[in-house]
């Protein structure tokens, strides 16, 4: 099961300011749930002037009690207050010459329940618009994928196939058309 969301936006700051702000975005008073940020890989290519960074964020999250009850304690790994940690892996590539930055963030745990992949592309606007020195365009896309949903869909599909095989004898082996989602 896949859901997709995308959006575009333009910041009132030039590209260097936006790319610096991206690296400095935690800690901030609006994201108190982000407990730590560590750089785990970083490489700079002098030839292309590209900078690649992999960072790991740890977030404290509080589950809705109803959801916490449904999941086994071992899967949640939360403490008494119902607080659970989750890990986010963020990869970014900055090209200062061409003035673009691409980022991808995804959750490392909880993947069986829901995996979220968030991509940002920051870009200097086209020259002719005359705003390139004080604006940065950004496009955001988020892909939500649930493996639980996928399992259910696969099972439903199998039932469908079995049902056709037994009830419609001599149907020429035609498979049930699979409804594609996403």
């Amino acid at each position, binding site marked *: 099961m896949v859901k997709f969301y995308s959006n575009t936006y333009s910041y009132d700051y030039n590209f260097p300011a936006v790319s610096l702000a991206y690296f400095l975005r935690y800690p901030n008073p609006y994201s108190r749930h982000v407990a*730590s940020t560590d750089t785990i890989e*970083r490489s*700079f290519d*002098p030839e292309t*002037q590209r900078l690649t960074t992999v960072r790991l964020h740890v977030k404290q999250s509080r589950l809705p009690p109803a959801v916490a009850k449904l999941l086994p304690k071992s899967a949640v790994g939360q403490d008494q207050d119902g607080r659970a940690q989750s890990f986010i*892996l963020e990869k970014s590539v*900055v090209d200062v*010459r061409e003035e673009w930055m691409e980022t991808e963030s995804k959750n*490392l745990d909880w*993947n069986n329940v829901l995996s979220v992949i968030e991509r940002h592309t920051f870009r200097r606007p086209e020259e002719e618009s005359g705003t390139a020195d004080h604006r940065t365009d950004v496009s955001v896309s988020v892909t939500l994928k649930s493996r639980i949903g996928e399992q259910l869909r696969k099972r439903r599909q199998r039932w469908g196939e079995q049902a056709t095989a037994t009830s419609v004898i001599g149907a020429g082996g035609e498979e049930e058309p699979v409804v594609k989602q996403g």
Partner: protein
Amino acid sequence: MSASLAPECNEVKERYDTCFLKWYSEKYLRNTATTDECEPLFRQYKTCLTAKKALKERGIDQMLEEARADNKDNDAEYMKPSGR
């Protein structure tokens, strides 16, 4: 400055982050960077994370491995020709 997930590495992380931000804003963003000057500090910081088994203890190294393996699976599943 943001904290490290391993509190014992906070100090070396802060030294590295300070160095990186200075290099990033004063050299990299001005297109005058020739090398990553903070690499020695980064190595110290990374050594702290691995020596203290900060990533291992929290099971993160395994999750990283799984994330990489999962990507391969997904690529195989979604990149194959759909036959339509």
